[in-house]
């Protein structure tokens, strides 16, 4: 038996190799897409409420229509699902009039659906990272954080089967009423009275009494809960506490405070309504699968191949289908910028969103027509840890800023055309908002040396050896080396450069475990607030330890101000403080760089680097010639 097997082995081996080879080269045959672009990293999800990144935004923004949408040229919010809208004089009440529109499965979209989708976004169980984008709506923050106290009108989501068996993933049955009491789980424990919760989230430590009925957390299956009914969650009552009201095709939104950029938030993809009829049926993330996904935007999902491509196909039920030119689009998930560059140069893709720095410098010098650059609403800066001496001394921070030659840095690292920044808010914001950034940063090495001497470090003597950290990247490294050299030459201070892996780098910033660290901020919307509210005391993105009462007061005052000029002035005063105190060293305004094939039409540069796919068009004849020849 074994001997016969042995004699057959060579023949078996040959057959196996041939068969494996044949199998290996059999690929499914799919027609290529009309337009192919590099989308960067594989998207985290296609659920608009669960993503935050740019690669996700390009896809989600094409699959889902917001109430409003950006004009690709001017970035002005235009009608989307809403055909028009009005604002009350005090800037607090927005009324949206919805146009007749439907999901790609034919289900109509109405104002109730919009509210249901936003409720899902605010539900703590959804854990939407961008939930705070609608916290400007009255009551929204409270609902999303889930704080409740005795006497509040609340809603109890019961544990158990959903109301409609057709929708197994819908919310549980909801009971509404007044929260009468919060007791300790253990009835004998009288000490609970002294530490009754003032205002906190639903927890399994307590028993809640609503309308005379006792409720306890479902996760806490215990005999100690007695007659209490199992509840999944108790939240402030959505209908009565959150400022959203619907009437078939009219949606009224009541804001907490005037928010001049509210229409812009509505054009931003996280607030695009999601199809609750599909989500309740297939659950999350089940609804995002190729089989079940239903969309409302100019495109629908063709297919998804992990870390390969996502195919978008024109949505024939989209309300504005006539204006969508390109029939099918492939978004390639390619992380490496040199691979992306190779694909673009060989004509395999039509739009490349990530360019390696070495290639960018050459392309800029050659003035390549395919390279589209535009100053972005993005600031590249260094964070200073103001909680550590000697950086806690304002004079030291000012000296560090004064000693820099920003023009030299950007010219050397990025080549011509890049803009050094003398303010924290990028200068490009002026034409959109009328806000003139406080460009008060000076560069003066003599003054720098003088301030450093006053702080006790004449010619850098006695200055401790501290670090300048950045995440591993060719460009960041070059900037850091130049900064290091300038500080050494002008101030006599020797910084140690530390290149860090991305995750570790982020961790060091959020825990304030750094001295000086490279950073960047992309504006979420076109308004100075997106840059300046970062540095309020205790802000999640402050990460410098900076705290100033007058700064906090100015940002808070601006939030309540409806007059545009007065509001801009408040922001300007705040930015002046920031540029005096310098917890951050602004370096340059980042420039968006896109490589766009010559046959692509309607590609408009804009400061948010947003290019809705539905606006693009291609000259297919020129493309076929170009693709064959390569470049």
């Amino acid at each position, binding site marked *: 038996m074994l*001997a016969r*097997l042995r004699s057959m*082995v060579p023949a078996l081996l040959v057959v196996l*190799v041939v068969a494996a080879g044949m199998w290996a080269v059999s690929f499914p045959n799919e027609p290529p897409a009309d337009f192919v672009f590099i989308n960067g990293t594989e998207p985290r999800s296609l659920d608009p409420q669960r993503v935050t990144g740019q690669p996700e935004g390009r896809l989600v923004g094409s699959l889902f229509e917001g109430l409003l949408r950006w004009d690709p040229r001017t970035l002005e919010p235009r009608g989307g699902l809403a055909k028009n809208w009005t604002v009350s004089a005090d800037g607090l009440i927005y009324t949206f009039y919805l146009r007749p529109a439907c999901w790609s499965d034919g289900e109509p979209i109405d104002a109730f659906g919009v509210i249901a989708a936003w409720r899902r976004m605010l539900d703590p169980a959804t854990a939407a990272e961008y939930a705070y984008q609608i916290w400007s709506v009255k009551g929204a923050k409270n609902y*999303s954080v889930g704080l409740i106290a005795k006497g509040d009108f609340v809603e109890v989501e019961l544990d158990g089967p959903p109301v409609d068996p057709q929708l197994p993933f819908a919310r549980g049955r909801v009971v509404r009423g007044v929260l009468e009491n919060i007791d300790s789980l253990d009835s004998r424990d009288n000490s609970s009275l002294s530490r009754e919760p003032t205002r906190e989230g639903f927890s399994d430590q307590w028993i809640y009494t609503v309308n005379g009925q006792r409720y306890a957390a479902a996760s806490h299956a215990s005999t100690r809960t007695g007659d209490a009914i199992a509840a999944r969650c108790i939240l402030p009552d959505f209908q009565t506490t959150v400022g959203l009201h619907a009437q078939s095709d009219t949606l009224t939104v009541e804001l907490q405070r005037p928010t001049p950029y509210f229409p812009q938030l509505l054009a931003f993809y996280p607030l695009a309504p999601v199809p609750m009829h599909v989500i309740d049926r297939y659950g999350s993330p089940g609804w995002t699968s190729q089989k079940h996904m239903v969309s409302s935007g100019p495109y629908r999902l063709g297919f998804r191949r992990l870390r*390969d491509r996502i195919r978008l196909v024109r949505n024939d039920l989209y309300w504005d289908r006539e204006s969508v030119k390109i029939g099918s689009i492939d978004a390639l998930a390619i992380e490496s910028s040199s691979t992306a560059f*190779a694909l673009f140069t060989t004509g395999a893709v039509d739009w490349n969103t990530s360019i390696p720095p070495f290639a960018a410098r050459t392309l800029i010098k050659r003035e390549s027509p395919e390279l589209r650059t535009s100053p972005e609403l993005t600031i590249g800066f260094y964070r200073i840890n103001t909680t550590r001496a000697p950086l806690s001394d304002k004079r030291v921070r000012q000296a560090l800023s004064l000693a820099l030659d920003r023009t030299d840095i950007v010219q050397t690292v990025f080549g011509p055309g890049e803009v050094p920044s003398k303010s924290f808010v990028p200068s490009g914001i002026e034409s959109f908002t009328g806000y003139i950034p406080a460009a008060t940063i000076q560069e003066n090495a003599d003054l720098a040396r003088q301030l450093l001497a006053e702080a006790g470090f004449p010619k850098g003597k006695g200055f401790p050896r501290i670090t300048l950290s950045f995440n591993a990247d060719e460009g960041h490294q070059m900037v850091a080396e130049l900064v290091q050299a300038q500080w050494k030459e002008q101030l006599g201070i020797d910084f140690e450069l530390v290149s860090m892996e991305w*995750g570790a780098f982020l961790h060091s910033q959020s825990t304030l475990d750094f001295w000086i660290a490279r950073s960047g901020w992309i504006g979420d919307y076109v308004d100075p607030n997106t840059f300046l509210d970062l540095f309020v005391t205790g802000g999640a993105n402050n990460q410098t330890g900076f705290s100033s009462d007058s700064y906090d007061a100015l940002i808070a005052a601006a939030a309540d101000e409806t007059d545009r000029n007065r509001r801009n002035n408040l922001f300007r005063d705040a930015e002046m403080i920031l540029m005096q105190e310098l917890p951050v060293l602004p370096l340059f305004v980042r420039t968006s760089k896109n490589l766009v094939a010559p046959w692509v039409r309607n590609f408009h540069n804009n400061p948010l680097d947003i290019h809705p796919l539905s606006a693009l068009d291609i000259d297919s004849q020129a493309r076929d010639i170009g693709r064959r020849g390569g470049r």
Partner: protein
Amino acid sequence: MKFIVRRIAWLAIMLWTVFTISFFLMRAVPGGPFSSERQPPPEVRKAIERRYQLDAPLWRQYFTEMGRLSRGDLGQSFRMADYTVAEVIAAGWPATVTLGTMALVVALVIGGGAGVISAARPGGVVDVLMRSASMVGIAVPSFALAGLAVLLFVYQWHLLPAAGWGDVAHTVLPASCLGLAYAAEISRLVRSGLLEALQSDWVRTARSKGAGRWRVVVVHALRGALGPVVSFLGPAIAGILTGSVVIEKVFAIPGIGYHFVEAATQRDYTLAMGLVLLYTLLLGVLGIVVDVLQVILDPRVSLER
């Protein structure tokens, strides 16, 4: 039989050890699956951590995860939230197997061919050239080879696509870069095996019966020289499997190797864990299969001591 049972038991212990070490190593590295340059408000952050049970004490997370994994549930990917780890593996598996198979074919065909040609005239110009080439092939790492190959075949001669996945043309460069090192090894094995076989009695018999030189080499001697090649296949497959991690990243091939690299850098705890265990399992099973095969192939080898 007893041997196989014992090996499987060892494999189970190995899986548990790998799981424990990876679990604590992953958590010890700073940063988490939800670190981002834009920090959400602390309340939102808390909601996210609660949803993924990252707020529980480490020991509880450890036992929860061990319980889940022992039921065969690899969990939901953190970074690709729309997919379970099992779905990611199912989606990536075909590409990795295709690439590995192609690489193995490249290794066998080129390596075997080169070995035969070398052995036909030992010490000749062709032999010396082939042997030097194989030396270089073994020494140069595959990613360096990949860079060079892209420069020549993509940029210089516009012959092959730079990266991506979808048709046969996409497999040529990565499979060659991955397979060539093994082709070099195989050519050396075939050459030395052949030279040894050519000295043997049965070959002398074949020669004396008047068989031509090529016929002697290919039909009579090669069969005897295959033994070492077959036993080298085990390590070669293991090497190709792990080597494809690098090659898949370079050529943007959506296989499990690429997922593995990204899972590590993106702190996708569940996906990284699933893939680490998958690799452990594969290499373990491969080892057992090779040992069993050797018994079948070579009468001199026995499993029971």
